[in-house]
C-alpha cells in the first residue's frame, strides 16, 4: 500500500520532473526555448498533471468511497468478511476503510460466538427433547413424520430413519379414531387438545398415553406436535390394584370362582394388564392324577388379535368393567383356542413341563420350545409357540395348578418383569381358589351347624311345648280331679240313701266353682291366642305410664308399696294400641308389686336410648333365678300358685306385635328389672 502510494505520488510529480529535465537539456545544449515553446511545454505539463490529477482523483477518491460504501453494504448484509481492497494513497479514507474492515472482523467474531451459544443451546434442547421421558412426534400437514425423539423410537423399537417421512397412520396400527379426529381438528383450528388414556399399538407394542396435540406454523406451513406421556405403567398398576380389589370383593361377594379366575386371565392378556397374547389356566386334579385345562383367554388368530386390540382401544372401556359384566355362561367364548385348552389333559406321570412347574413350585420360562429338552413333543404340539412362560398357582406349599401365557401373535419377548407380575396374578388366583375352597367347606360347616342349631331350636321348642302342655294338663287336671271326686261323693251319698242335703249341696258348689275355674283358664288361653288386632295410633308412653299408675294407685297404698316414677320429657310418640300397652304395663307393675311385697319399692321409668323409647319397671324382690330367666316369657310358665302363667307371655306378644322388645334381668343389687323398648318411627 505504501509503495503504491509512493509510486502514485512520484507519478504525480513526473510531468514536472520531465518538464524541468527538458528545461535543463535545452539550457545545456544551448538551445534556448522561446517563450512560445516554454508556454507550450508548461501547458503540456499542466495538461498531463491535470489528467493525472483527475484520473488520480477518480482512482484514489471516488473508487475508494465507492468501495467503502460497498463494504458498508456488505456489513449491512451480514457479510462480515470484507474484501481487502486496494487503497492507494492511504490517508483518511484508508483509515476509515481499515476501521470498517476491523469492525467487520469484530462483528464476525461476535456473531460467531453467538452462533456457538445458540448451537450449544440447540444441542441442549435437542438432547432434552430427544431423550425426554415424554414422547415427541412432529408431523407435517400431510401427517408425515418430521421428527421423533429417542424415547419414542426406543420404546416402540423404531429407528429414527425408518420413521421419518412415514405416514403416521401407518406407524400406529388399529383404529385410533379419537386420535385422528383430534389431530385433524388441531390442524384446522390450531386449538390445543389433550387426550387421555389413548392406547397406541405400533410395531407389536401397545401402550397407553396421555397425548397433548398442538400446532406450530413453520415458514407458513402447519406442523402438528404431539407430546405423549406414557401412562401404561400407571394404568397397569391402577388396573392391578383395582383387579386385586375386585377379586377380594368377589370373594367377599361369594361369586363363582370361575369368574374370579376368568378376570385374572383377562388381566393377564389385557393391554392395560400384562399384555400377554394368550393365557391358559390348568388345574391339578388329585383324584385323576392329571393336569387339565380349565379355561383360556386369547384370540384364535392374528386377525382376531388385531381386531381385539382395535376394539379394546375404541371402546375405551377399562378391562375391569368388562370383566365385571362377565357371566360364566356367556362370558367365555367357545373359540378353537378355548376348546383346545379346556379339552387338554396331561397325566402327572407324563412329567411334562406343567408337572415340573407344579412340582418345583417355580415359574418356567421356555425361550425356545422347539429345542428345549424340557418340553415334550405332546406339549410342543399343543402350545405351538416358541416362547412361553408357565407359572404355578401356589397356595400354602402345594400347587393348585398352572397359568401358561405367551405372545403367540406379536412374538414380543417375555420380560422378567412380566413374569414377576404374572406370578403375582398367579398368587392371587391361587389365593382365590384356596379361599374359595375354604369358604365352601366353611359354608358346609356353617350349614351343618345351622341345621344342628335348628334341630336344637326345634327340640327346645318341643320342650317348651311339653312344658306348656304339662302346665295346661296340671291346670286342668286339678279342677277336674276335684269335680270328679265330689261328683262321686254325691253319687255315693245318694246310693247309700243318706239324706245329707248339705253334703250334696257342698259337693255341687265345689263342682260349680271348679267349672268356673276351668272356664277362666280356657278364656285366658283363648285371650292369649286371640291377641292379634290392634288399633295403633301415636301415643306418648308417659301417658300410658300415668294412666296405668292411676289405676293401681289405691293398690299401692293398700299394700304399702312405694311407687318411684321417673318420666323423661319430650319423648317421641310411639305408634301403638294404647290399651294394649296399658295391659303390658299393668302386668309388669303388678308383677313388680308382687315381687317387692309390703313396704317394698317399685320404680317406673321412661326414657330414650339408642333411638328407642323405653319404659322400665324395677322391683325390690328376690330377683329371677337363672334357669327361669329363659322361660319367663313362655306361655303357662309361672312361679305363682294363683297364676296361669300367661301374663308375661301376653306382654311379650303385645310388645313384639308393636315391633318392640321386652327383656328381663336381675338388678345388680337385688330385684328384677323388666325393660320394654320400641323403635322410634
Amino acid at each position, binding site marked *: 500500500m505504501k509503495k503504491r502510494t509512493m509510486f502514485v505520488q512520484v507519478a504525480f510529480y513526473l510531468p514536472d520532473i520531465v518538464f524541468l529535465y527538458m528545461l535543463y537539456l535545452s539550457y545545456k545544449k544551448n538551445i534556448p526555448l522561446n517563450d512560445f515553446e516554454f508556454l507550450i511545454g508548461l501547458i503540456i505539463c499542466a495538461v498531463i498533471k491535470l489528467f493525472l490529477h483527475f484520473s488520480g482523483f477518480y482512482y484514489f477518491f471516488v473508487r475508494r468511497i465507492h468501495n467503502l460504501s460497498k463494504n458498508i453494504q456488505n456489513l449491512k448484509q451480514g457479510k462480515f468478511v470484507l474484501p481487502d481492497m486496494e487503497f492507494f494513497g492511504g490517508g483518511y479514507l484508508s483509515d476509515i476503510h481499515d476501521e470498517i474492515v476491523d469492525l467487520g472482523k469484530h462483528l464476525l467474531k461476535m456473531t460467531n460466538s453467538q452462533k456457538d451459544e445458540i448451537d450449544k443451546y440447540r444441542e441442549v434442547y435437542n438432547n432434552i427433547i430427544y431423550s425426554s421421558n415424554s414422547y415427541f412426534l412432529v408431523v407435517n400437514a400431510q401427517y408425515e413424520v418430521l421428527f421423533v425423539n429417542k424415547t419414542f423410537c426406543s420404546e416402540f423399537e423404531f429407528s429414527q430413519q425408518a420413521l421419518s417421512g412415514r405416514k403416521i397412520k401407518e406407524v400406529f396400527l388399529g383404529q385410533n379414531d379419537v386420535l385422528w379426529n383430534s389431530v385433524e381438528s388441531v390442524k384446522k383450528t390450531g386449538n390445543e387438545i389433550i387426550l387421555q388414556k389413548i392406547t397406541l399399538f405400533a410395531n407389536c407394542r401397545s401402550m397407553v398415553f396421555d397425548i397433548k396435540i398442538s400446532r406450530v406454523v413453520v415458514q407458513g406451513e402447519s406442523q402438528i406436535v404431539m407430546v405423549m406421556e406414557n401412562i401404561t405403567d400407571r394404568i397397569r398398576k391402577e388396573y392391578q390394584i383395582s383387579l386385586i380389589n375386585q377379586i377380594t370383593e368377589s370373594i367377599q361377594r361369594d361369586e363363582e370362582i370361575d369368574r374370579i379366575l376368568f378376570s385374572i386371565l383377562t388381566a393377564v392378556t389385557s393391554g392395560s394388564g400384562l399384555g400377554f397374547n394368550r393365557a391358559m389356566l390348568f388345574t391339578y386334579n388329585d383324584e385323576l392324577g392329571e393336569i387339565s385345562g380349565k379355561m383360556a383367554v386369547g384370540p384364535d388368530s392374528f386377525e382376531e388379535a388385531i381386531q381385539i386390540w382395535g376394539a379394546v382401544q375404541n371402546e375405551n372401556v377399562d378391562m375391569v368393567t368388562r370383566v365385571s359384566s362377565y357371566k360364566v355362561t356367556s362370558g367365555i367364548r367357545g373359540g378353537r383356542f378355548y376348546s383346545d385348552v379346556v379339552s387338554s389333559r396331561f397325566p402327572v406321570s407324563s412329567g411334562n413341563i406343567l408337572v415340573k412347574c407344579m412340582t418345583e413350585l417355580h415359574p418356567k420360562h421356555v425361550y425356545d420350545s422347539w429345542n428345549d429338552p424340557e418340553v415334550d413333543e405332546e406339549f410342543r404340539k399343543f402350545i405351538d409357540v416358541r416362547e412361553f412362560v408357565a407359572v404355578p398357582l401356589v397356595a400354602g406349599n402345594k400347587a393348585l395348578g398352572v397359568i401358561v401365557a405367551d405372545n403367540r401373535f406379536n412374538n414380543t419377548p417375555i420380560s422378567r418383569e412380566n413374569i414377576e407380575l404374572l406370578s403375582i396374578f398367579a398368587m392371587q388366583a391361587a389365593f382365590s381358589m384356596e379361599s374359595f375352597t375354604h369358604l365352601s367347606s366353611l359354608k358346609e360347616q356353617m350349614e351343618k351347624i345351622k341345621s344342628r342349631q335348628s334341630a336344637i331350636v326345634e327340640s327346645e321348642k318341643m320342650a317348651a311345648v311339653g312344658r306348656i302342655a*304339662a302346665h295346661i294338663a296340671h291346670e286342668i287336671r286339678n279342677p277336674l*280331679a276335684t269335680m270328679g271326686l265330689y261328683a262321686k261323693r254325691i253319687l255315693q251319698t245318694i246310693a247309700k240313701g243318706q239324706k245329707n242335703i248339705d253334703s250334696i249341696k257342698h259337693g255341687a258348689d265345689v263342682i260349680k266353682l271348679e267349672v268356673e275355674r276351668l272356664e277362666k283358664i280356657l278364656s285366658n288361653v283363648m285371650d292369649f291366642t286371640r291377641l292379634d288386632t290392634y288399633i295403633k295410633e301415636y301415643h306418648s308412653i308417659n301417658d300410658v305410664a300415668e294412666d296405668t299408675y292411676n289405676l293401681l294407685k289405691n293398690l299401692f297404698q293398700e299394700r304399702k308399696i312405694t311407687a318411684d316414677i321417673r318420666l323423661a320429657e319430650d319423648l317421641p310418640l310411639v305408634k301403638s294400641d294404647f290399651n294394649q300397652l296399658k295391659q303390658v304395663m299393668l302386668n309388669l307393675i303388678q308383677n313388680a308389686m308382687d315381687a317387692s311385697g309390703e313396704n317394698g319399692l317399685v320404680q317406673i321409668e321412661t326414657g330414650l336410648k339408642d333411638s328407642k323409647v323405653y319404659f322400665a319397671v324395677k322391683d325390690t324382690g328376690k330377683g329371677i333365678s337363672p334357669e327361669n330367666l329363659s322361660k319367663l316369657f313362655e306361655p303357662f310358665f309361672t312361679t305363682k300358685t294363683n297364676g296361669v302363667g300367661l301374663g308375661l307371655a301376653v306382654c311379650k306378644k303385645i310388645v313384639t306385635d308393636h315391633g318392640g322388645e321386652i327383656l328381663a334381668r336381675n338388678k345388680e343389687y337385688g330385684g328384677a328389672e323388666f325393660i320394654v323398648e320400641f323403635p322410634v318411627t
Partner: protein
Amino acid sequence: MTKILVVEDEQYQRELYALELKDEGYDVDQAANGKDAVELVKTNKYDLVILDIRMPEMDGIEALGKILSRDKKIPIIIYTAYSNYKSNFMTWTADAYVTKSSNLDELKNKIKEVLENRSKSK
C-alpha cells in the same frame, strides 16, 4: 291307728281326701302347704305323708327334702296333678308317685301297699 298327713293347697280336694281316708279307717291331719307340713311333722308322729307338689309358701319337693332330713324312714307318697315328673320321682326318694284323678282308689291302694312294705321290712 295309722296316722296320715295330707298336704294339699286345694282346699276342697284336701277336705275330701281327709273324709275318704277317715272312712278307710285312718287318722288324718291336714296341711295347706309345705311349710305347715314341716311344722306338723316336727311335733307329730305320722305313719305316712301324702304330698302335693305345687303349693304356695313351700312346694312339695322342698317339703319332701325337709321332712326326710328330719326323719329318713317316714313313708311319703307324692300325689300331684303333674304327670310329667313321674319318671323322675325315684330321685326324690319318695315311696310312690301317684297322679291326681277323680278316682281315689289308686291312692288308697298305694297307701296300703306302702304301709305293708314298711311293716314287712321292719
